[in-house]
């Protein structure tokens, strides 16, 4: 996460990626059309590919498009069984969540932390908002890794994280999942905090950055084409 990707063709400004993330959130919460959802997914996939993370891009692209196309076909075929209902529910989930997750992947996997902080500083946001935001985005993949390994460890002992256990034994489920999760994240947080303090995140002086963070022509082209797509698809095709 937040590593330097040397094989990137395109290097977007963090602000552009942030704007794309916000626009895709607004888009996916208001979008109904399957076709425009697929266009959005393809656009984001191409961006992730150009940023140098080909594996993620191909994975998301193929997965989302196939799911959307097949399920759209099943729903259009018109039989009203419970299968259609399940398909519809899954399709709504994919349609809403996938563009956001892809934009999040674009944002987190291809941005350097230092670039992000200096971009935020150029936007003159207060540090009380910037630091929690950055830590949150940096911390999300870590937490989901921990979550996965805790689920595996629970399966070894024959405890399953599913709907039945979640509803029937909420107290025990919370105890078994959250306590190890919180304990391990607490120690990670302490380490993160001390490493950030050692690098002088708490000083009041203006921070400097190795690489220059600047909006270029590419940024404006991609930003405006994506925003234009979102506006047109939300106004025209609903």
């Amino acid at each position: 996460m937040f590593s330097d990707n040397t094989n990137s063709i395109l290097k977007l400004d963090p602000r552009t990626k942030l704007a794309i993330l916000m626009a895709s959130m607004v888009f996916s919460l208001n979008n109904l059309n399957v076709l425009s959802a697929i266009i959005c997914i393809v656009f984001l996939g191409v961006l992730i590919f150009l940023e140098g993370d080909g594996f993620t891009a191909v994975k998301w692209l193929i997965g989302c498009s196939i799911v959307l196309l097949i399920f759209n076909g099943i729903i259009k075929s018109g039989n009203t069984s419970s299968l259609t209902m399940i398909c519809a529910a899954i399709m709504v989930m994919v349609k809403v969540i996938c563009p956001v997750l892809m934009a999040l992947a674009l944002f987190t996997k291809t941005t350097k932390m230092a670039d992000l902080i200096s971009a935020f500083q150029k936007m003159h946001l207060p540090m009380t908002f910037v630091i929690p935001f950055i830590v949150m985005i940096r911390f999300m993949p870590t937490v989901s890794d921990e979550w996965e390994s805790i689920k595996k460890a629970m399966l070894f002992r024959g405890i399953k994280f599913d709907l039945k256990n979640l509803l029937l034994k909420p107290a025990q489920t919370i105890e078994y999942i959250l306590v190890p999760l919180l304990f391990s994240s607490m120690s990670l947080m302490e380490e993160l905090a001390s490493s950030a303090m050692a690098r002088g995140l708490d000083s009041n002086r203006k921070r400097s950055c190795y690489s220059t963070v600047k909006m270029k022509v590419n940024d404006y082209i991609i930003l405006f084409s994506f925003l234009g797509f979102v506006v047109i698809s939300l106004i025209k095709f609903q």
Partner: protein
Amino acid sequence: MGDIVEKSNSKKLTVKDLIFAGAFAAIYLIAVLGIMMVVGTVPILYVLCPCILGVLLGSIYLLSVTKVRKFGAALIIELLFACISTGFNPIAFSVCVISAVLAEVCILIGRYKSKLWYAISYVFFNIGTAANFIRIFFAKDAYIANLQKRAGGAFADGMIKLLSPWWSWIMVIGCALLGGIIGAFIGSKLIKKHFEKADIV
């Protein structure tokens, strides 16, 4: 060294507190996403989401606010949650902000010491998880038409049946409050059992 000690005793949020708040917000969000993935496919449970989330996430909130113990921790977590989950819808966003401010006021009444007021503050904080439903009530007809186009079939019918009567308002907010109460109870028990023993809080 003396400087650092002095800073951590002050009332303002230090960088370390901000890092803790951000990291707890990440845990909170991942947990919300994980639970929604499991719960979200059944319409009845989908409406009960505020209650389920409230019951399950109480300990994360309580641990974060008792760890930081300053003004602003709950506000930051709820703001970050609102940024991700509401899609910048003005009504849902303001519901989140108001619930977080109420929670902060509760903690303030307890003077950052009282465990009872921390637990009460979670009840208000949990209204934020119902923000997306409260938004629906402000534009019910549009939402129902939208849902029929979007999902169609039995899912939409189930949702409409649940959302149309007048008492559904009370049900959703009551759900959030009930979930908050149970979650606060479980959370404070859990913190007493595990985290106070380990000297984390």
